[in-house]
Structures are given as structure tokens and as C-alpha cells.
């Protein structure tokens, strides 16, 4: 039974449960809904939730765990010398999976029975040819061992799916019956479904957190592998970035970190004043009609994909800066430069800063402004001396969040700043950032055991730590000063 059909069945059962539960509750009080503890709908809701949620949770869990278990058992069949070699076992597993899906296609196309398939062997028949007919191209002749493994892989998959279907259905029915049996007039269905919903929400929040933890763990394990084959001090203190795919590369973080910080600095120099001034205008000066137009238009910038910004940097800003500023001043003749990327990232960040700042300024109580006006302060004095200081913690938080976005920006830098890892002060020279190098180290042929590839994870980890610190700092500042004027 496929996952889709199974889901539909469970869902249908849950919907039926809703109506049965509702009518059962009504029947228990002879149709007089005033005598029920909760509204009739809540009784139906409890049945719905108890039928659907545990069943779907089991299904999700099973779908995650089953491949892990099966892979583990298949790898066990490979024999020790292959199973211990990570690369070889990975390749073998890929073959197994491909042949298994080929057999699925073969069965669907030719209508072979399961018994016929079981009797199939790699030696006798031209498996490679037959699989090619159904669209599965194999690189070499099929190894009998791999073929047998593919067959048992298929069987395990089928068995797993079968067991899952049965268990999910049993769980759904059990939930259905249990929830239904609890229903009587005094049953506090409203409280029960409230509690249930709360746990559902907690679980959703948990998924987000677990994902973050998972990302960090996977980054961390690869980073540790990288530092196992490349000296940690070289990574942090070497001033050269020069990866060689033949080995013997210099993988120093500093030129990339410098480029990242330099470009982000330029971006913030552009974005912070413009963003804050725009916010002051929309929040304090603009009449409501103007504000209702200007604010969404500024925020529209935030919706433009960064690739489009990158194009803008590549074909407009870059050449403009080169032809009218860098070349006349003798500062270089590169179209891609720190300035180009910085300016464009700055523009990208303007709506981010202005929108947050505008909200923060609006949150400053009107009584503050009244107090200042009442003492004879002008509008700009009030804004400078009362509103902005009161809003400052929030504004600093907004700036730091924008900074961590600027640091993590990839597309605009790729197209605007170039790919040359350099340590320099000239803002009209091409430089590059951590993010760009992560991408370039992970494109092309990959061998996940060379430092040139694994360095991407160490770079990612560095970036993650930097932006995490910035975000934590921003949140801390915002929280520390938030309720000062309450």
C-alpha cells in the first residue's frame, strides 16, 4: 500500500471519527447539547486528533527510520573489506539502490511475478540489457553479489512498507476506538483537545530546533574530519588561499574572512544610514497616505531575488564604478569589486533595516513624544533626543541582524565581487568571501576525503559561528532594553 493511499485512509477514518464522536456525544445526553461539558464539535475533534495524529507520527517516523535500518543490514552483507571502506560501500549501495529501482521498473513494464523475479540471476540473463530497456543505465555488468543484495533490498523494502501499513492502520483504529469510548456527557473534551493541540505545537517547535541541531552536527562532524587532515593553525592563520586539486594547497581563512567583513562593512555603511533615515521619515514625518504607499514599496525590494540583484551588480553597478570612479582615480580596472558587491548588498538590506526600525520607532509610546513637545522641543529634537534613544536597542538589534544577512550573502558577491581571494585595502579590487568559496569548493567533481573539499564545511562552520554570535548578541541587546519605557 503506498504512502498516499494509506494517508487518505487514515484521514478518512479521522473525518468519520469526527462525525461519529460528535453524534455519540449528542446521543449520550439525548440531543440536548446544553448538558454537554463542551461544544459537540470538541468531542468530534478529540476523536479526529487521536485517530490521525499518532498514526501520521508513526508513519513519518517509520519512513525516516526504515531506510537507515535496511541500509545497515545491506551493508552488513557486503563483506568486511568493502563495508569498512566508506567510499566503496557508498558506491556499492548506490548500485544496489539503482538495480532495485530497475527491477521495480522491469516488473511494472513486463508484468513479471515476484517468483519470476526471485529466480532471476545475474549470471544467466542479460540483466544490464534488460534494465537498459526500461531506462536504467548501468555502468558495468552486474556483479552477482550486488544483484542478490538488490533483490533482498527490494524484499526488505516491500516487507517494511507492509508492516508499516498494518501498524499505522492498527494505531489509527485503536485511537479511533479509544477516543470514541471515552465520550460521554461529562467528558471534558474541550480541555483534552486543548492539551492535545498544545503538544502538537510543542512538537512543531521541536522539529525546527532539531533541524538546527542536525545541521550543526553534520557541519561539525565534517569540520572535525577536515581538521584531522589539515592543521587547524594553518586554517586560521595562513594568509593565503590557494587550493590545488593535486594536493599541497594553502587553505587560509584570513583572506576570505577579510573579504567577507570588508564587503559587509561597505554594505552596512550604505544600508544603515539610508535605512534608518527612511524609517524615521515613514514613522514620524510621512502623512498616513504617503506612508501607506512608501512603506510597502520599500519593502518590495526585499522580495527581489538576490540573483537579480547580482545581475544588477554585474551589468550595471560594476561597470559604472569601474568606468567613472576606479579608472579615473587609477584604482584599478576590475568590473567586479568590493565596492560593487557592498553597494548592492547595502541596497538589498535597506528595506530590512528600515522596516524593522520603523516598527521599533512606532513602538515608542506617544506619551514620550508628548512629554518632549510639552517641554517645547521641536519635532527633530524630539526624534533625536527622545525617540531614537528609546528605540536604540531595537535599532541596534535590527542592524546586527542585517549584518549577519550581509555576511551570509552569496549570490551578489559571486556576481559582483569576483572570486579572487586577496588581502587588500583597495575597495575597487576584486575580492571574495567565505560563502563564495564554499560554493566553489563544492562544485565539480567531489571527493569527500580531500581537504580541498572538506574545507567547505570548516568555512561553513566559521560562518555559522560568526552569524550565530551576531544574532545572539542582537537578541540579547533587544531583550535587555526592550521594556525600558513600560
Amino acid at each position, binding site marked *: 500500500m503506498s504512502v498516499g493511499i494509506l494517508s487518505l485512509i487514515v484521514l478518512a477514518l479521522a473525518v468519520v471519527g469526527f462525525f461519529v464522536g460528535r453524534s455519540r456525544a449528542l446521543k449520550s445526553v439525548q440531543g440536548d447539547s446544553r448538558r454537554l461539558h463542551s461544544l459537540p464539535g470538541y468531542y468530534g475533534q478529540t476523536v479526529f486528533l487521536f485517530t490521525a495524529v499518532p498514526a501520521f507520527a508513526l508513519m513519518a517516523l517509520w519512513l525516516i527510520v526504515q531506510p537507515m535500518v535496511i541500509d545497515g543490514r545491506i551493508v552488513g552483507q557486503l563483506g568486511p573489506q568493502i563495508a569498512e571502506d566508506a567510499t566503496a560501500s557508498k558506491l556499492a549501495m548506490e548500485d544496489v539502490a539503482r538495480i532495485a529501482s530497475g527491477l521495480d521498473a522491469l516488473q511494472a513494464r513486463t508484468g513479471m511475478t515476484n517468483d519470476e523475479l526471485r529466480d532471476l540471476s545475474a549470471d544467466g540473463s542479460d540483466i544490464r540489457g534488460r534494465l537498459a530497456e526500461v531506462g536504467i543505465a548501468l555502468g558495468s555488468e552486474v556483479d552477482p553479489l550486488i544483484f542478490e543484495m538488490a533483490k533482498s533490498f527490494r524484499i526488505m523494502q516491500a516487507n517494511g512498507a507492509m508492516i508499516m501499513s498494518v501498524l499505522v492502520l492498527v494505531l489509527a483504529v485503536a485511537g479511533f476506538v479509544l477516543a470514541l469510548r471515552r465520550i460521554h456527557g461529562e467528558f471534558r473534551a474541550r480541555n483534552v483537545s486543548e492539551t492535545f493541540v498544545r503538544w502538537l505545537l510543542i512538537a512543531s517547535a521541536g522539529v525546527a530546533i532539531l533541524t538546527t541541531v542536525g545541521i550543526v552536527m553534520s557541519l561539525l562532524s565534517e569540520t572535525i574530519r577536515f581538521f584531522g587532515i589539515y592543521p587547524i593553525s594553518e586554517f586560521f592563520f595562513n594568509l593565503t588561499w590557494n587550493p590545488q586539486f593535486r594536493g599541497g594547497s594553502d587553505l587560509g581563512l584570513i583572506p576570505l574572512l577579510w573579504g567577507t567583513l570588508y564587503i559587509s562593512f561597505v554594505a552596512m555603511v550604505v544600508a544603515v544610514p539610508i535605512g534608518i533615515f527612511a524609517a524615521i521619515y515613514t514613522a514620524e514625518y510621512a502623512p498616513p497616505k504617503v506612508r501607506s504607499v512608501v512603506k510597502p514599496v520599500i519593502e518590495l525590494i526585499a522580495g527581489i531575488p538576490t540573483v537579480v540583484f547580482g545581475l544588477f551588480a554585474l551589468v550595471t553597478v560594476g561597470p559604472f564604478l569601474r568606468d567613472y570612479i576606479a579608472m579615473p582615480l587609477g584604482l584599478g580596472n576590475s568590473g567586479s569589486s568590493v565596492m560593487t558587491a557592498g553597494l548592492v548588498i547595502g541596497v538589498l538590506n535597506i528595506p530590512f533595516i528600515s522596516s524593522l526600525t520603523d516598527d521599533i520607532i512606532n513602538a515608542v509610546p506617544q506619551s*514620550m513624544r508628548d512629554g518632549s513637545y*510639552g*517641554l*517645547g522641543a*521641536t519635532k527633530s529634537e524630539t526624534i533625536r533626543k527622545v525617540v531614537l534613544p528609546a528605540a536604540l536597542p531595537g535599532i541596534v538589534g535590527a542592524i546586527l541582524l542585517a549584518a549577519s544577512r550581509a555576511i551570509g550573502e552569496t549570490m551578489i558577491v559571486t556576481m559582483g565581487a569576483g572570486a579572487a581571494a586577496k588581502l587588500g585595502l583597495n575597495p575597487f579590487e576584486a575580492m571574495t568571501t567565505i560563502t563564495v568559496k564554499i560554493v566553489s569548493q563544492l562544485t565539480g567533481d567531489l571527493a569527500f576525503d580531500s581537504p580541498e573539499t572538506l574545507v567547505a564545511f570548516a568555512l561553513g562552520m566559521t560562518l555559522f559561528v560568526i552569524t550565530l554570535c551576531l544574532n545572539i548578541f542582537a537578541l540579547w541587546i533587544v531583550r535587555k532594553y526592550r521594556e525600558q*519605557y513600560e
Partner: protein
Amino acid sequence: MNDMRIVERDVDITENKITARGVQVYYGTNHALKDVDVDILDKTVTAFIGPSGCGKSTFLRCLNRMNDTVASARVEGEILLEGENIYDPKVDPVQLRAKVGMVFQKPNPFPKSIYDNVAYGPKIHGLTRNKAELDEIVEKSLRRAAIWNEVKDRLDASGTGLSGGQQQRLCIARAVATNPEVLLMDEPCSALDPIATAQVEELIDELRSQYSVVIVTHSMQQAARVSQKTAFFHLGHLVEYGETGQIFTNPQDPRTESYITGRIG
């Protein structure tokens, strides 16, 4: 209404501080204040009483042109401060507000230190030439607002960390610091507990020796306790204006009588 015998009432001063004639206020199409004539005396506490929405706060906010900050508000008629029409185009509302200080319903100290709260007005108006003079003004204002002894050791602490009553007295000190001639108070005690209220009321009585104080209040007892003159507003009209004792014991208008005996409001 025995309270009113407590305060000694010396309304022998007859010098007008503020003279309002034919004041009309509109909020958009809503005619909030209709044809108000009032003479507010110098060195006197004048109370505005009346039910909610009667226009007493609106009138108060006309006296220092705070209504200018409300986009839809329109004021007609004339209000003279010592003979000068404050709605004359030549008058700078910003300068006017330094002369006519205001204290608000909810204590609204700035999120700055106590010192900076009081020094705010003198600084923006350039009233001092050096730090020593500023220190002096701050101390004098805090003393006048009867809060100096409580805060003198922590002038650098945030003004928002004080208790409600202290915050309100700090706001009064802040208003006093610009050396105003008139002090407007918009329900200054409505967010305070009885003890803080008593402190602020006592303070208002002391301030009378130097300023003309106008107070809007919902509490008739408070009006009776602190004021020498009382004006009763109802539905945008100034119904009755006279000496506090007379308003509370012998009102001339039946509407005033109904209000102070609790039948409308």
C-alpha cells in the same frame, strides 16, 4: 463635601494670566469645544471638572497648542497669554510650550537618567551657560517638585525605575525646569495610588506660590482640595466657572448641581 473648608482660599489675586474668548475646537467634523470664555488667574490653581468627553482636556491642550500635534484638530477664537494671542502666526508654539509647561495623565519620564530628564528642557532651550548652572537648575527643580531628597543620591539612575508617584513628581520637576509661567496638568493623579496622590496634591498647592496651575481632574474631591477656582465643562460647553467653594456648595447652573451630586457623569 467637607474637604473644601480645609484649604485656605485666598483668591484675592485678580491679575489675569490667560484670557480665552470664543474658543472653538473641531476634530475633523466633530465640534469638541463650543464657545469657551475663561479668565485664568495668576498664582492660582484652577480646576477643570466634568464628565468624560466634555472637552476639558481639549481646552487644556489648547492652552499650550499641544493640539497642533493632532493633524485633524482646528482651533478658532483667541487665547491671550498676558495679552498676547498664542494662536497669532508670529508666536512659535515651541517657545510657547516652554512658557506653558505640561504634566500628563500617565507619568512619562524619558528612558534617560533622572538628571537628564530634568535637564532636557533647559538644554534644548539653552537656558544655561555651563554645567554648574545646569546642576543648579536640576537641583532647584527637583526640590520644587518635592522629590530631591528621594533621588539626590541616584541622579544617574534611570527615571523609569522610580515608583509611579516619584515618576509623576519627576515629570513635574521636568516641566518646572524650563521656568514656565503656567503649569498645565492633565489628570496628573489618575495613575497614582492614594499616598502618591496626596503627595502630588500637596505639591500642587505649593506650586501655586509661583505659577498659575491649571489642573484637569475626574475627582471632584481633588478639585475641592487643591483648587481655588473651578470650571465645569459639559458636552463641549463651559457651563459654570467660579470660586471652588461656591461651585461646590452653591452651584448656579442645574447641570453643575446634577454633576457634583452625582446624577450626571
